[in-house]
């Protein structure tokens, strides 16, 4: 194998499994937040222009003036992750990635 003991290999396998389980749970929650956000988008654009809107656990938690307040809002709802969007803010879509560091 890779010169590691069976117990070490087992430990690494369990860690990888736990990591993937946590990641899957986070992805599920992220998906639920995105669905809730998409569903409310028209209403958000009308009512919360220039404000941060926060989603957690697949539901709308509220809006805030600043990012710090948005974080506090998620924390107050016992969320450890949240979706946040500043309504009406122009986000750069991406851009060019030259050949320099592509090793994904």
């Amino acid at each position: 194998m890779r010169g590691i003991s069976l117990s070490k290999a087992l430990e690494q396998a369990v860690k990888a499994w736990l990591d993937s389980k946590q990641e899957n749970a986070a992805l599920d929650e992220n998906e639920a937040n995105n669905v809730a956000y998409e569903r409310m988008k028209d209403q958000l654009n009308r009512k919360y222009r220039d404000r941060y809107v926060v989603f957690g656990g697949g539901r709308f938690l509220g809006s805030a003036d600043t990012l710090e307040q948005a974080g506090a809002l998620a924390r107050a709802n016992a969320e450890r992750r949240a979706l946040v969007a500043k309504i009406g803010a122009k986000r750069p879509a991406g851009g060019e990635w030259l050949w320099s560091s592509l090793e994904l």
Partner: protein
Amino acid sequence: MELLRAVGCLQYSGSDPESPVLEVRAKEPLLGREKTLTAPIDTGFAGYLLVPRDLYAELGTMELPREDFGIYSTMAGSVTLRRAEVKLSVGDKEVDTFIETPLYGTGRMLLGRRILSELDLALLGRKRMCCHLRQAKKLKTT
């Protein structure tokens, strides 16, 4: 042109030839967790602070909606990066910006042009040092 002074220099690091790097402190806005990171600067990357997936899991607590993820065009096709809000301290600057990580794949650490364009930096290639630039006091002329 104004007179500038190089301060807060950091030695290049990584494999030969070494890369210029900067120390950044990233703070996620939900739980307030902070990490100090040494990130290679990459003028070829148009994005923000690219981080490996495991670090993103820790710091990317306030993620943007999918529609605001960055899509970057590369010679190998387009690459989508997840994006999350973060407060970044670089030198004496503090900026509200984003960390990114690939939607697929493990990612790596890179400081892209969206952040670099906010900074005044000097690369002292022969000394292998990356430095911040500050305005120097005017020289007295007699």
